[in-house]
């Protein structure tokens, strides 16, 4: 029989052991917050006894960018000895959950990366700080950030995020298949009629050949409807307009390409292969996808490929996706955090590092960096990445975009697989969206 004292000791030890495992890291001792003047004007600062530590959470460094981000951190800390950056990187799949849990649990990182689609939700919940005052106080030149990219992270005229990196969606095509089918390569002035005609000829090359991969999903559809002068929301984002005639026309073409001409493979024909996997097989003429596919296609495609600006319909519209940097509303070191995110967004060294290591494009438009980017091949026509910027339409800026995407996505799938007509699917989507989401 165990002695009472031994038992009590065991209980205490076990419980302590448990807590030891999940103890929070020791918080840095409280220091005087850096005032705006100190942070902005005195550069480089004299090292203080206890530097401020800024927690920075991000996802985009996860895919091969960790070392580059580390170099950026070193550059920043060298110029700002009073600020230490604690980088926390998570994969895209878990990033949203991690960030939300940290914020919900009262342990928000000082600053973090946000995708353009999640950003309005954080503004809606006042979870991130407006940056206008801090921007006004800075002496840094911000002119290299284009108006469009700054606008993308502003809501109702207030700036909430520093534009960090961006991508566009382009038309990527298999040059070898175009040669085999005797079709001329796509150009920037192509419409979908040209693309669909070329796709038909490529499909005719063989039984399991396809002309075009164009996803029938919310992320694709929000932009395609713009090419038909349609739109998923009214101008001031206060009402859904999902089933308007222009949208139905846009969806009809997408569905016909699968169901009627079958120039696009159906999900059944693709099976467990994703869109990229299908294109990489070398039997599909074109794919509409993001420029983030370049590294993967360069490695895996055993054929020649190039890009063009995405074709349009009545007008042109392209997909612009950006990641921005925001400061948590709960941060106690907002000024220091601002210095860091401003550095990431505007530094020429950062822009060059990103391009050298083939990371996403920086929003800062330094000519040297852009020239460096344009020289990389494939694709030979890398200029189309920049040309696409002339037609960009951002994702709808509403707090419930994620839910909207799922509801609409399910109806688009129903249209794509033929269980509903495009009109029916969009009518049902309109009704479901109105029932589930209150806008305004």
């Amino acid at each position, binding site marked *: 029989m*165990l002695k009472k004292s031994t038992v*009590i000791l065991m209980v205490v030890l076990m419980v302590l052991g448990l807590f030891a495992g999940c103890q929070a890291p020791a918080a840095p001792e409280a220091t005087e917050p850096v005032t705006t003047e100190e942070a902005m004007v005195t550069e480089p600062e004299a090292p203080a006894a206890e530097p401020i530590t800024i927690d920075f959470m991000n996802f985009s460094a996860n895919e091969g960018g960790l070392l580059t981000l580390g170099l950026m951190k070193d550059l920043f800390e060298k110029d700002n000895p009073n600020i230490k950056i604690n980088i926390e990187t998570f994969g895209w799949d878990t990033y949203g959950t991690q960030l939300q849990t940290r914020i919900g649990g*009262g342990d928000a990182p000082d600053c973090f990366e946000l995708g353009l689609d999640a950003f309005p939700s954080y503004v809606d919940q006042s979870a991130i700080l407006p940056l206008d005052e801090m921007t006004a106080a800075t002496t840094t030149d911000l002119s290299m950030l284009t108006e469009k990219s700054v606008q993308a992270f502003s809501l109702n005229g207030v700036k909430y995020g520093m534009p960090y990196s961006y991508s566009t969606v382009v038309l990527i095509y298999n040059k070898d298949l175009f040669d085999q089918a005797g079709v001329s390569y796509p150009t920037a002035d192509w419409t979908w009629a040209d693309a669909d005609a070329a796709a038909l000829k490529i499909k005719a090359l063989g039984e399991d050949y396809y002309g075009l991969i164009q996803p029938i999903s919310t992320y694709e559809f929000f932009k395609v409807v713009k090419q038909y002068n349609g739109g998923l929301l009214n101008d001031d984002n206060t009402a859904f307009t999902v089933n308007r005639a222009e949208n139905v026309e846009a969806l009809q073409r997408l569905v016909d390409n699968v169901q009627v001409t079958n120039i696009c493979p159906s999900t059944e024909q693709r099976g467990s292969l994703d869109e990229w996997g299908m294109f990489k097989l070398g039997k599909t003429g074109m794919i509409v996808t993001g420029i983030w596919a370049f590294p993967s296609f360069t490695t895996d495609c055993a054929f020649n490929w190039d890009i063009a600006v995405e074709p349009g319909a009545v007008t042109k519209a392209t997909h612009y996706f950006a990641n921005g940097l925001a400061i948590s509303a709960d941060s106690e070191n907002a000024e220091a955090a601002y210095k860091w995110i401003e550095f990431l967004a505007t530094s020429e060294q950062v822009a060059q590092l990103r391009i050298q290591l083939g990371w996403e494009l920086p929003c800062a438009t330094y000519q040297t960096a852009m020239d460096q980017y344009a020289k990389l091949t494939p694709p030979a026509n890398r200029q189309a990445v920049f040309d696409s910027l002339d037609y960009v339409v951002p994702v709808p800026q509403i707090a419930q975009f*994620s839910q909207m995407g*799922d509801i609409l996505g*399910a109806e688009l799938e129903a249209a794509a697989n033929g269980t509903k007509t495009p009109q029916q699917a969009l009518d049902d989507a309109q009704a479901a969206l109105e*029932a589930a989401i209150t806008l305004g």
Partner: protein
Amino acid sequence: MRKNRNNHTLTASAFLAPSMVGFLLIAAIPFALSFGISFTSWSGIKGLALFSPSFWQENFIGFENYAKILKSKEFWVSLLHVAQYMVLYIPLMLVSSLGIAMLLNKPRKGTAFFRLLFYIPVLTSWVAGAIIWKWVLDPQYGILNDILLRVGIEGPAWLQDPKWAMFGIVLASVWKDMGFYGLIFLGGLKNINPIYYEAAHLDGAGRFQSFLKITLPMLTPMVFFVLIISLINSFMLFPQVMIMTNAGPAGATQVIVERIYKYGFSYYKMGYASALSWLLFLIVFLFTYLQQKLQKKWVNYDA
């Protein structure tokens, strides 16, 4: 005597303490908090301050979340999908795991190896398992459709076809779980006294009759246990759906836990997600209670 009992309680507490602390921190406290959150419009992307009056002033919405859920078509459709899953999964799983247990019960060469083989899927992570099943069920290159084609059947598009997607998920789930339930049945089979079979044999009973009149009745406590566990697990259907279909195609595999996850972590409606969780808890509780009540009619505990 009394001192002795106290000592026993203390010793038991010592061993239970670590898991109790874990249970309190990881399960009981969040469980209680989620009840409070379910009456709020809290998004999950602002700090949670349940003990601050201003938090409640800002976020308290009474039973609005519950009312909204019960009125939404989506909730009932998700429940219907869970029911479809159960109707397919539970009988298939019962038959296959009982079959495995019967096969492994007889001492044959290599029984230990096969016992391990059937148990491997239980230990496999759902991520790996679901990815393998996505390949198996591929309409073009999948092994299942290839086998079906060899016997003259053109297989469906499984996960890409709204009519077949749930069945595809059921197949993967049965593969994953049958080893575990098989082991429970095997334990039950080993406990049946062989004397019953000998007596039945002497009385001229065949194998099938012995199975029906001895094996099945003696296994009812296991069947009951397996039914409860698999029913609860069916309501918790989640990882395989997220990985294999992400609730698609066209929402055909949308289920309750997937909805809870999406509302909480993708749509930033943590209050709504918490209310959904509590409704799910009530449903599971009700079903378990009913099963517990009904068991008297068919479960036989006389070994």
